[in-house]
């Protein structure tokens, strides 16, 4: 080592010592005062911005479907939501408008067309009187048309909402609006919110089951029962009503139950390792879904099989065993409610009566559609009632919008059959069961059924009411996503307290 190198080394050492001398304890405290202050401030903030109290629902990714208690005393334990996809005509079913009959065949007054937009009506359409006879039924004197002779006998069990409105005049967005509270994709559906908030009592079955009929899924596709930004375990599970309820539910030849168990255990173990590494809660959901699928292999075929129901029940519902039809689904819905499934959503396609074909005519196809649902829905209400289930099950019936009092003139030309266009300003829905008034009618439309006069109900109000019956305050029931709490009812929604018992 040369003299110069030694000298340099000494200089460096000296400098380092000087630096160390600067850093006495006093220096440390002085310099870190800012940091300590920040720490103190942080602890102050954490005590005031505590959000835990704001959102009391705890999500346990390992057991996402465990039953949870609702914030308020719930009147409904389960919901059966019957959606007539395509939008049934309120003017041929429940909203009796004799004045409209008088206008039948006349040109539509311009006041009804100014500034309005319709899906297919162009120019000046003709008015179309009710294409069914109406009569009052039950002690409540509710108007039900001849198209629903069975349902008319249980009119005293129902609460009609006569003035439901929406702001979407196309099927898919309107269906999304009703079920997810937004006309665009990406929001969780009503059933997902319900299972997220309440879990399900039966751990061997999904909490949210969807059954479709009419040969087609609803226009909005599976998003109407999607889970949106909620954990995916809460999305609706679509079951088939013909053949196996879930595809590939049976073990394939050569694979016995033990082997199946062993393979699912192995998969779960791999997933558990994966979770340890990435901590993604969706992996835990996946594990629990595998476990449920395994249990469902035993329970689902039994529950989803209507053949072991007695004959008189089949007669009551008018089922067609072995075929896919709405009546079978309705009977299944009752069985699922009995087993503790939280939310059952039925979609029946084929209610879009434009008058472009006989099937879509309000005086032909609509009658046939009514015959498919009339007997079984009536049976459902009575069957739930006699089993003591109606008092804890909320039944909701409706479409995504209504139909115009005008006859549709597609592209300005006359349609081959009598039909009605999509209409957003007034349509009828009904609710029955848990906590709902019996034999009641809420809301009123004008004398031709064009718009709501009183008791206007938005999809948000409907959702608020359903959540209320399940024990939730829709304004408090939120999920934090993208940095803010989201609500099913967004910033709107009023519980329709008039129809609550």
């Amino acid at each position, binding site marked *: 080592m040369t003299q110069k190198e030694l000298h340099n080394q000494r200089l460096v050492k000296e400098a380092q010592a000087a630096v160390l001398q600067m850093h006495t304890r006093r220096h440390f405290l002085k310099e870190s005062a800012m940091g300590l202050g920040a720490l103190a401030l942080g602890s*102050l903030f954490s005590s005031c911005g505590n959000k835990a109290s*704001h959102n009391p629902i705890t999500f346990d990714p390992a057991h996402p479907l465990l039953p949870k208690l609702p914030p308020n*005393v719930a009147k409904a334990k389960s919901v059966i939501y019957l959606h007539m996809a395509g939008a049934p005509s309120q003017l041929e079913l429940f909203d009796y408008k004799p004045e409209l009959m008088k206008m039948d065949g006349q040109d539509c007054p311009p006041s009804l067309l100014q500034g309005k937009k319709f899906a297919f009506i162009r120019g000046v359409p003709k008015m179309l009187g009710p294409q069914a006879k109406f009569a009052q039924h039950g002690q409540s004197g509710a108007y039900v048309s001849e198209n629903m002779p069975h349902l008319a006998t249980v009119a005293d069990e129902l609460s009609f909402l006569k003035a439901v409105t929406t702001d979407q005049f196309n099927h898919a967005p309107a269906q999304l609006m009703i079920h997810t509270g937004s006309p665009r994709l990406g929001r969780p559906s009503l059933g997902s919110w319900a299972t997220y908030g309440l879990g399900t009592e039966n751990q061997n079955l999904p909490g949210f089951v969807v059954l479709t009929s009419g040969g087609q899924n609803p226009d909005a596709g599976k998003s109407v029962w999607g889970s949106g930004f909620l954990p995916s375990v809460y999305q609706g599970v679509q079951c088939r009503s013909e053949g196996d309820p879930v595809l590939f539910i049976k073990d394939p030849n050569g694979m016995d139950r033990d082997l199946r168990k062993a393979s699912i255990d192995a998969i779960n173990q791999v997933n558990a390792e994966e979770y340890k590494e990435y901590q993604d809660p969706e992996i835990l959901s996946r594990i629990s879904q595998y476990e449920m699928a395994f249990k469902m292999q035993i329970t689902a075929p039994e529950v989803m099989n209507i053949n072991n129901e007695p004959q008189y029940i089949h007669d009551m519902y008018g089922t067609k065993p072995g075929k896919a039809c709405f009546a079978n689904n309705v009977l299944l819905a009752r069985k699922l409610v009995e087993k503790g499934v939280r939310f059952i959503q039925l979609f029946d396609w084929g209610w879009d009566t434009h008058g472009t074909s006989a099937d879509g005519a309000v005086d032909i196809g609509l009658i046939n559609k009514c*015959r498919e649902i009339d*007997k079984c829905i009536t049976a459902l209400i009575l069957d739930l009632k*006699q*089993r*003591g289930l109606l008092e804890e099950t909320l039944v909701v019936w409706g479409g995504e919008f209504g139909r115009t009092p005008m006859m549709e003139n597609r592209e300005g030309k006359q349609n081959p059959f009598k039909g009605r266009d999509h209409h957003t300003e007034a349509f009828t829905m009904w609710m029955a069961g848990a906590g709902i008034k019996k034999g009641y009618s809420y809301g009123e439309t004008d004398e031709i059924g064009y718009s709501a006069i009183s008791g206007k109900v938005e999809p948000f109000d409907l959702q608020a009411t359903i959540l209320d019956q399940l024990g939730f305050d829709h304004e408090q029931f939120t999920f934090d996503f993208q940095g803010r709490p989201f609500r099913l009812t967004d910033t709107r929604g009023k519980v329709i307290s008039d129809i609550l018992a």
Partner: protein
Amino acid sequence: MLEFLGHFHPVIVHLPIGVLLVAIFLQWLSGKEKYRGVKPAIAPILLSGSIASIVACVTGYFLSISDDYDQSSVNWHMWMAIGVVLVSLVLYTKEVNPKVEVSKKFLSIGLVVLITVTGHFGGTLTHGSDYLSKPFFKMFSGDSVVNTAIKPVANVQEALVYDDVIKPILETKCYSCHNENKQKGKLRMDDIALLLKGGKHGKIIDVNNVDSSEMLQRLLLPTDNEKHMPPKEKPQPTESQVALLHWWISNNADFKKKVKDIQQPDKIKPVLLALQKPVIIKKQALNLPATAVEKGDEKIIQQLTKKGFVVLPVAQNTNYLMVTLTDAKKVIKKDIDLLGKLSNQIVSLKISNSTFENEAIGSLSKLSNLRKLNLANTNLTDKELPALNSLQHLQNLNLTGTKVSAQAILQLQKLKELKTMYLYQTSISKSDSLKLKTAFAKTEIDFGNYFVPLLPSDTTLVKQVPAK
């Protein structure tokens, strides 16, 4: 047009704040050896910040003349903002021409102070004067959630109609836009004289013509109407609050009287009474006991859960429990005895589609607090049924699908509170069902066996328009 430009003010103001602060930060940074290179950037940033602040001032002026704000706050805000413009311009001149004799440091600190003060006045104008301080003080008072709910009144009849009933509604729903600092529509509501004076369109309270009072009209318009008050995105008053306002105005909109001195139509009585309760008590499906109960033993709940029972409180903030068990192959006496240890808490029990072991059902008699019992599709027989007689509070009993006979059910007449009974698919004949109905006059009995007839139309298809 001016108003339109004015509405850009809230967007543009943040630009000079950010830009000028960046400039000052860079100026400080450029003093360090390592960051000397940033120096050339300071002048252009200062200039753009000055220009942005000028634009913000101009749009701000437009906003102030098109909307109604408290004049003195606006003045402060405006002059401070002009100060920001001037100081930033001087700072810019100094930056491009170092010969100018001013202290850079002094100017920079001054600018930061000016920006802060201007910003604070701006915030006061839009959010109200206690926007910043309220949550700050809340922090120390230990109340983590800012509580906007109206506090209950101890005795509503003795309360002052304006101070205790009406004012709290206005306070929570109206004051945020109609106050000392901000008078939307030239209306100020936190001062009685000014409230009576009204706003841009004149009086808002008309005691002679209650229904055309502008305040009520605005409240009752549909929420999506532009003129609806409060605006759609703000918290809305409840129906009963609107009813209270209507009642108050139709009774001369008095500011001094007590509630008891004012006429009270039947409609308003329950609404007034509801003010005494902290929360609106909802009608409950289960008629829960009026008194609260201590928490059920967590260990017993866990044991039950292990055995497949679903044990849950009926709702949050109550310790009463509902218990469910379905599809159990064998329910043994021990299980039911476990339930018995929670007899104070359990108000609803459902054991359905299950098989009880001998004597197990008898132990149900300990669950003396039960309101609702569902034993549908179990092996319950006449022998065990009398055990249920000790469930004095039972309101709802479901025996669907059990082998009980009318004779045994007649013995349940000690259950005075029984409101509903489901007896579908039991061993009860039609003639017996009449007997039961008369014996249980106060109870609604559902024997089921409903029938939906087969109509010819049910199985036929319509191919063409049916003949009328």
